Each structure stands twice: as structure tokens, then as C-alpha cells.
């Protein structure tokens, strides 16, 4: 289970593969191969189509979300559009529109937003890529709605008592994106420079945007 796979701090940008799964043919891996081959035999898909889909997924990274946030910080009209119609805002930036309704929720001095999917793993994949293991873990899904400040603390994130913490539970049809607070001291930053400050975890709401 995901809980067993700890982040290796010595390798900040690479994470270990799940042990015993990339080189061992487990029953479930055999099932994946069998199903994929049967779908290819039946001409429902092709090996090339599967490969292209994997590539497309590899290209969906939190950098997309970071561009959206940086634009919202820089352009008041875009910010308004993002908060009113998240999908239209993504489309306006030339990004994927997303298959499901996107709701952007903005952090302010008074409100800190956090996103979860208690039932499974719904996540704005088109803006952030695939969700990390902890997002899908029992501990996060169970506790972030009942004790969000403690869970934020486990990420090293302390929200002051003068702000409320709102937890948003995603559904199969609706995905949330947190618009973090713009860090101080970033006046005059270009959008691309701002985008570098926007982390995946800040867009899930378990941390803040980076200080420059």
C-alpha cells in the first residue's frame, strides 16, 4: 500500500518505484498485459494508441496548474474568470479544458482551502498530473476532513487562527484547484517567474506557495 512508500529525502525530484512491482510479474500486472493484448486483438485500441496516452499523461504536470495560478495572480480579469468558470479559464490559456467541472477556490488572509477526495482519488489531473500516493492514502482521506489543521501540520503548514480552513471533497464530476496566496515580495515578477513559486502541494492546499 502507498503508506509503505516513504519519500526519499536524498532524491528530491525522483521517487522510488513501488518495490517488487516493476520487475515482478504479479497477478495484477499479468491481468493488465492480458487485457491490453485482448483489446488490441479485438481492434478496440492499438499499442501505439496506448503508448501515446501514456506520453500525454507524462506531459500533464503541475507546471500547467502553476501557469494558471501565475496568470490569476497577474491578471484580475483572468482571476475573475478562473473563479467563475475554471474550465473556460483553462481553455482561454490554451490548456486542456478538462473533462469535469473545475472549481477554483482562492486562499485569502481569512480562508485557507484544502482539497481531498474522501471516496477515492478525484483530482484535477489535467492541471496537476497524477495524484501523489499520500493524496490517495487512507490517512489523508479519513482525517483531513475531521482534523484538517492537524493534517496540515503534518505537512509543516500552520494556518493562523484568524483564518478558517475549508476542506473541499471532490467528486467524480467536480475537481477543485486551490489558488494559493501570492507570496509577498513578488511585485513586478513576470508570470513565468511567478509560476515557479507555485507548487503542486500549494494547489492542493496542503502548503503555501514558495517565497522567492
Amino acid at each position, binding site marked *: 500500500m502507498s503508506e509503505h512508500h516513504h519519500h526519499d529525502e536524498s532524491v528530491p525530484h525522483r521517487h522510488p518505484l*513501488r518495490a517488487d512491482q516493476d520487475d515482478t510479474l504479479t497477478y495484477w*500486472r499479468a491481468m493488465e498485459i492480458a487485457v491490453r493484448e485482448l483489446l488490441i486483438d479485438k481492434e478496440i485500441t492499438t499499442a501505439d*494508441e496506448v503508448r501515446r496516452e501514456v506520453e500525454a499523461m507524462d506531459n500533464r504536470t503541475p507546471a500547467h496548474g502553476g501557469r494558471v495560478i501565475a496568470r490569476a495572480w497577474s491578471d484580475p480579469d483572468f482571476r475573475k474568470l478562473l473563479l467563475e468558470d475554471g474550465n473556460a479559464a483553462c481553455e482561454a490559456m490554451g490548456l486542456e479544458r478538462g473533462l469535469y467541472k473545475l472549481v477554483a477556490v482562492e486562499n485569502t488572509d481569512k480562508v485557507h482551502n484544502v482539497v481531498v477526495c474522501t471516496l477515492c482519488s478525484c483530482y484535477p489531473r489535467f492541471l496537476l498530473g497524477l495524484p501523489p500516493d499520500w493524496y490517495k492514502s487512507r490517512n489523508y482521506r479519513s482525517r483531513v476532513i475531521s482534523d484538517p489543521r492537524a493534517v496540515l501540520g503534518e505537512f509543516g503548514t500552520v494556518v493562523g487562527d484568524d483564518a478558517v480552513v475549508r476542506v473541499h471533497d471532490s467528486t467524480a464530476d467536480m475537481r477543485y484547484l486551490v489558488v494559493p496566496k501570492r507570496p509577498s515580495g513578488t511585485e513586478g515578477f513576470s508570470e513565468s517567474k511567478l509560476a515557479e513559486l507555485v507548487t503542486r502541494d500549494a494547489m492542493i492546499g496542503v502548503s503555501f506557495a514558495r517565497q522567492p
Partner: protein
Amino acid sequence: MNTFRGVHDMGGLPAGEVVASEHDFALWEKRVDALMVLLSRKNLLTVDELRRNIESLGADAYDKMSYYERWIYAITQTLIQRGVVSIDELGRRIAEVQARDDGGN
């Protein structure tokens, strides 16, 4: 423990500390994800079918299986339920794959 909850319905229940765990996805996991996306696009799988099949797993299996193991199980169940793939041909092909065992590629 509320006995009316499905095993997946864990919001608000007691649980341990969150460990910021992650791993780079293995190719087979990405392929499972790709199959889900492709089958959805081809109208052979809905997100509700995927979820219903995941959520019908017993508590023990749900907790023992990894995320993408639950997904390939649910995708396969959906294809069987829809008659796209038969249990027989699936069983035969899995046995072939296991006999071949060339590392999964």
C-alpha cells in the same frame, strides 16, 4: 465503526498520521491509467462503472491491493460485465502471459 459504510467511504474516520509518500509510477501503472482513459473515450467504460467495481471490493482486498491493482481489477470487471471480454479468454490470456513471463513487455 459504521457498518453501513462501504470500505472506500472513509472520510472522518480515525486514521494515522499522513506520510507524504509518493513514488514514480511504473510503466504498467501508467498503462492501466491509459486504458481507463482510452476506454472512457471509446464509451466502453464510465467513471461510475469503475467506481462501482472498486467499491464492491471486500475490505480486505481493498486495503491489500495497490491503487492501480484496484483499477485494473475494476476495468477488467467492467469489460466482462459489458461482454467486451469473456472470462474464459481472459483466463487463458493471463495464463499465457504468466507462462511467457518476459518482464511484462
